[in-house]
């Protein structure tokens, strides 16, 4: 509770300083002011403009997130299970991994046009690698003792997979998913910045094109709020998927 008061106070000081210095110490043209940003944000909110563009971005980020996430998990589990295949593919994976996926955007524009599917594919590509590598590591880190114990009980490959490998990889998968949330937004928004006529990225570049600094800040605010919402959703899913970790946190500490 107290910590929240301190945080609120910090925010108030920051916004206050911004408001006061705007138009006096710095030009309002460049830094705008919180009140101007709030006005625009409110205007967009009531006119439905914000929801329309945010909705587009959400659809892109979310579809890309799900698509890339599912593909990343599937390939991660597949390669995690087959050592030879993983060894063969290792250099190719590293090549794609070291490539900044955003740099593929112009190529994707050529291939898929400037519509919503190009942003979804770009986002999915970014998310795929993060989730894939985490899942792969998770599957590789499964305790061999646990597998042996289940094998001795007569467990089949399938049972070992569903009872040991998948549950123990879940923590890694979620680490990858959490990491992917901001990147999913980056994918969607960069896609929109490059070529689009809708979405928060478009709103951002449109406001900037009209030298509307307050509009730029309002668009950034919307992006931040969206990112926080997505993060929250992943966190809630994580808690639901791994109740045993929660219990560990609640446990009294002892050594």
């Amino acid at each position, binding site marked *: 509770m107290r910590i929240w008061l301190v945080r609120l106070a910090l925010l108030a000081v920051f916004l206050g300083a911004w408001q006061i210095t705007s138009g006096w110490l710095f030009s309002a043209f460049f830094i705008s002011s919180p009140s101007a940003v709030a006005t625009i944000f409110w205007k967009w909110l009531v006119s439905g403009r914000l929801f329309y563009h945010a909705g587009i971005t959400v659809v892109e980020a979310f579809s890309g997130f799900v698509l890339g996430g599912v593909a990343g998990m599937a390939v991660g589990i597949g390669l995690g299970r087959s050592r030879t295949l993983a060894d063969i593919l290792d250099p190719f994976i590293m090549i794609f991994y070291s490539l900044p996926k955003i740099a593929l955007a112009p190529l994707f524009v050529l291939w898929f046009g400037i519509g919503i599917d190009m942003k979804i594919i770009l986002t999915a590509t970014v998310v795929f690698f993060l989730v894939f590598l985490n899942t792969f590591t998770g599957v590789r880190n499964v305790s061999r*003792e646990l597998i042996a114990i289940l094998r001795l009980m*007569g467990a089949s490959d399938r049972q070992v997979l569903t009872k*040991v490998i998948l549950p123990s990889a879940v923590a890694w998968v979620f680490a990858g998913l959490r990491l992917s949330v901001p990147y999913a937004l980056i994918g969607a928004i960069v896609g929109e910045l490059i070529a689009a006529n809708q979405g928060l990225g478009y709103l951002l570049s449109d406001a900037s094109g009209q030298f509307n600094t307050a509009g730029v800040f309002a668009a950034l605010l919307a992006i931040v709020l969206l990112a926080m919402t997505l993060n929250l959703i992943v966190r809630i899913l994580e808690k639901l998927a791994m*109740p045993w970790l929660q219990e560990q946190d609640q*446990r009294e500490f002892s050594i």
Partner: protein
Amino acid sequence: MSLMESDELIAFKGFGKTFSTKAGALRAATDIDLTIRRGEFVTLVGPSGCGKSTLLNAAAGLFPPTDGQVLYRGKPVTGYNLSVGYMTQSDHLLPWRDVVGNIAVPLEIKGIGRREMADRVSELVTLVGLQGFEKSYPAQLSGGMRKRAALARLLAYDPDTLLMDEPFGALDAQLRLGLQIQLRKLCQRLGKTVVFVTHDLDEAIALADRTVVFTGRPGTVKRILAVDLPRDRNLMQLRHDRRYNELTAELWDLLAPSIQDIEQLVKAV
């Protein structure tokens, strides 16, 4: 106690195992000839690192021997030996399953019906005294409770042979005695064969039909003591049994030379 050849269940013939480690080859066990008969309760004692656990691992088929053979029912053990249940020093419970879920794992693998499974599991929970902790995750349990959950899981899948590696090490004296009594009763009633590693000399005699004494690394069989106590012995009363005390004293003397080594080690420090 003369038993026929066909009663041989597990046989180590000239068994030896060398592990390759970063520090070079490590000879864990060497020249072990040991036969375990069906329905027998055999305890293994010896200094730490004398290859007792190696023997259990090989019987479970976790790795092949470097030298010699491991036979189970007369056939070489290749790959996981599904006739054995293994309980190791660490409990190896699944951290994402609660107590009930962990005990149910082997029953799920067998494909037992939901209703029967629930009955079996609650029976086993009561047997190991974990009532009230059914919904607890392993991370929330004490070491002793985790051991008990692991024991319940082992009993749930009802293997012919139990390989147990210091299963009761972390338990308090009362609970340990309780579980020892349970284990002996169960094994006798169900005709289980048990190979049981322990560091506790009293436990080694109290539970066993035979006690195998190992030398230090590389471990090999030093002596085999036939424990001529009645099969339906009363573990509660053993302390007052003359023969039991003679046997523990004998075992103590057998292991004393390696205890002298420790004394020298202490002096050297």
